[in-house]
Structure formats: C-alpha cells, structure tokens
C-alpha cells in the first residue's frame, strides 16, 4: 500500500518540481501565451495539472512507467551527487507517440488543416517521421531562457 502511494506521488507535478533545477520548468507552465505548448496544455486542463510533467514526459509503452522511475533515480543521483548538466536535455528526441496518446482520434488533430495539407503529412506524423515539436510546428515548449521576459498566468484560487 505504501509502495503504491509512493509510486502515485512520484507522478505528481509537486514531486518533479521539488528539485531546484526544475523550478523554471514549472514556471514555464504558467506563461501567459497560448503558443507555448506546455503552458497551453497546463492552463487549459488538457493534461491533469497535478500530473503535468508525468503526463507528457512518460513514454507510453509497456515499460514506460518503469523506465521513468529508473530515470528518476538517475535524476536524484544527479541532483545530490553527480551534478546536473545544463542545459537539461531529453534523453531522446520527443516522440510523437506521447502527443498521439491523447491527440490521435481527436477531431482537431485528425481534421486539422495543416495536418491534412498533404496526404503524406498525417502518415509522417503518426509514424514519428515528422516531429510535432522539432519540425517547428509546435516548437514553443519550455523556453526557460526567456522566462524572465514573459508574463505569467496566475491560476484563480
């Protein structure tokens, strides 16, 4: 029971942001600009706010959760012993699979004008040949370098 509760806690936004190095990434979820992908998802409830990091940064594969926990142990080591390498980078390029976990089948995605501008585009997106993020279409993600210049949204209490 305790193990299940601990596992549930590791999925919480508060857990991920409790390391100092992640604070800026947490603030970037409150950027008051809908072109910022994580902020738009967080502020509009497209992802659970209390599991914001976990929802988008866990691989949706059979062992995705276990792999995330293993990476988490590495992160704890880096935070307290090994030292955090900056800038923080993803282990692998962001996989469209994580976006499609929710967006596949959604009308706004399936019928989107740009997604269907050419028949090959949708196939390329779904096969991860054309990245949602690094293709430049949804490239505004955690822009922590310019966070100081951006207005932040305050959630109503």
């Amino acid at each position: 029971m305790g193990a299940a509760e601990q596992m549930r806690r590791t999925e919480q936004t508060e857990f991920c942001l409790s390391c100092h190095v992640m604070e800026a990434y947490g603030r970037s979820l409150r950027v008051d600009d809908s072109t910022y992908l994580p902020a738009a998802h967080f502020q509009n409830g497209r992802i659970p706010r209390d599991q914001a990091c976990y929802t988008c940064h866990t691989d949706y594969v059979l062992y995705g959760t276990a792999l995330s926990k293993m990476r988490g142990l590495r992160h704890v080591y880096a935070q307290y012993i090994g030292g955090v390498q900056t800038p923080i980078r993803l282990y692998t390029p962001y996989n469209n699979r994580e976006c499609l976990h929710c967006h596949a089948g959604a009308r706004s995605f399936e019928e989107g004008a740009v997604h269907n501008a050419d028949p090959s585009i949708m196939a390329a997106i779904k096969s991860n040949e054309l990245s949602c993020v690094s293709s430049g279409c949804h490239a505004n993600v955690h822009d922590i370098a310019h966070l100081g210049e951006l207005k932040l949204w305050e959630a109503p209490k």
Partner: protein
Amino acid sequence: MNAGEPHIHRRLRVSGVLIILGLAVELLSLIRIHPLAFMGFLLVGGGLLAAGVVLYLISLVSVAPAASREDFR
C-alpha cells in the same frame, strides 16, 4: 526445548525489529512529497524490510535440520 531455540529466538527478534523499523521508515517517508522521501522509502525502508524478511527466512531454514534430528531421536 532443543539447542537451536535460543538462537532462532534471537534471530526472530532481530528480524522483527528490522521489519518494524523498516515499516516505521516507510511510514515517515510518506510525510513529504519529495525525491529524498521516495529514496528513503525505497532504499532505507525497503532495505530494512528486506533484511528482516531474509533474516526471518534464514533463521527458519538454518534451525530446521537440528530440530528435525531432535524430533526423531
């Protein structure tokens, strides 16, 4: 009473203490939502718990041959 009993009692007592300590550490780790609390749960609490269980099982296995010899005498 056979000769193995005091030894097994001591081992069982130690394993009991280890398991209680492990559970206490795991309970304390639930106070905060923090990576260190998770590590405490996993490594310290889990370690004590595992050590207690292993010691308990070893104590049972190691005393069995002596006990069975006594029984059949």
